[in-house]
């Protein structure tokens, strides 16, 4: 369980801190890798750039993906993940402020596994993170590695 990695793609430092706090408060002690823009996220997953040489067979159990990101936005990250053999089955949860219909539609269209709107109320946010952890790290069986 503890070797399961969470990839958090988040550019807002406050949201990063609050998400980490919510994970900690819910006793989710998995390693959290943080990517602060779309490029960092892709570098991590594909072992390029700053992550050149990383063993990419070690994929995150779940990726928490914000939509509005610098450089490469969340939907574009999602599209590229789904287009690549190595990451096309990766569980991706969109975690965003927006509940615009268009974002929801696009999120699912490009292959998100789940879509969660970050609540303003921190108590609700804690609950959402607790459920996320429970579902994606405990209940859900990850897709088998194809190599």
């Amino acid at each position, binding site marked *: 369980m503890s070797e399961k990695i969470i990839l958090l793609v988040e550019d807002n430092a*406050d*949201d990063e801190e609050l998400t980490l706090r919510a994970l900690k408060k819910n006793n989710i002690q998995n390693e959290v890798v943080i990517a602060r823009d779309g490029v960092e996220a892709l570098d991590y997953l594909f072992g390029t750039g700053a992550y050149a040489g990383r063993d990419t067979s070690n994929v995150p159990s779940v990726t928490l993906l914000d939509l509005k990101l610098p450089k490469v936005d969340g939907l574009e990250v999602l599209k590229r993940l789904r287009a690549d053999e190595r990451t096309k089955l990766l569980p991706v949860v969109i975690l965003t*402020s*927006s509940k615009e219909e268009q974002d929801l539609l696009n999120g699912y269209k490009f292959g998100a596994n789940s879509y969660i709107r970050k*609540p*303003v109320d*921190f108590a609700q946010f804690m609950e959402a993170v607790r459920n996320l952890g429970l579902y994606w790290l405990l209940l859900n069986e990850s897709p088998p590695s194809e190599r």
Partner: protein
Amino acid sequence: MLARIQEQNAELQRARDEMEQHVIARTAQLEAANKELESFSYSVSHDLRAPLRGIDGFSQALLEDYGDRLDAQGKSYLQRVRAASQRMAELIDDMLSLSRVSRGEMKSETVDLGALAQNIAAELQSADRRRQVEFTIAAGLLAKGDTRLLRVVLENLLRNAWKFTGKNSTAKIEVGVDRQNGQPVYFVRDDGAGFDMAYAEKLFGAFQRLHSSTEFQGTGIGLATVQRVIRRHGGRVWAESKVGQGATFYFTL
């Protein structure tokens, strides 16, 4: 004679062409304005909520981690910070839903307002089973309009009726239709708190409220939303009431 007719025809054609050009230009302007509005409300929903989450989250963090170093008043201030940020989040959401009813395609279909009202009444009753509210909803309330938008109208009117009868032990809410000058006038009537007709004009303004939020909760966006939808349908909405004797909201489509 013939020459003059031909000349007038040519003149008419020129005027028509010119008009056509105006319409095309104006449509392009409107489309651009709509696009701008859309991207504006997008950033409102995304960018304004993020700092609020920070305000609420870190206030909570202070309470949890440093609460023992604060006295009761200090803690209550932090609670107020949290309540205010959550309130602002509500306002943002309401503002967005108001802008959403003004955007998007509008269909013209036959809508069963009675069935919609029944549906909403059932939702209200299942959300609070302690209330004793008798709904009377006329059958065959057919209208022409956009189902999704008209549902928004009925939802707001019925929620209001439900809310403003909340202080009474029992309540009656009625949905029906009258005829005025041969035109159907739909109405939602309650026997709740009512309001002073002196303020009737303010009723449909965005974020206008006739009751304090400690008395009745709400952001004051519901009736503004109702009015926008009704206007988009080419109709009218108005209300009649007396303090303490309920209110009736009328609308045409």
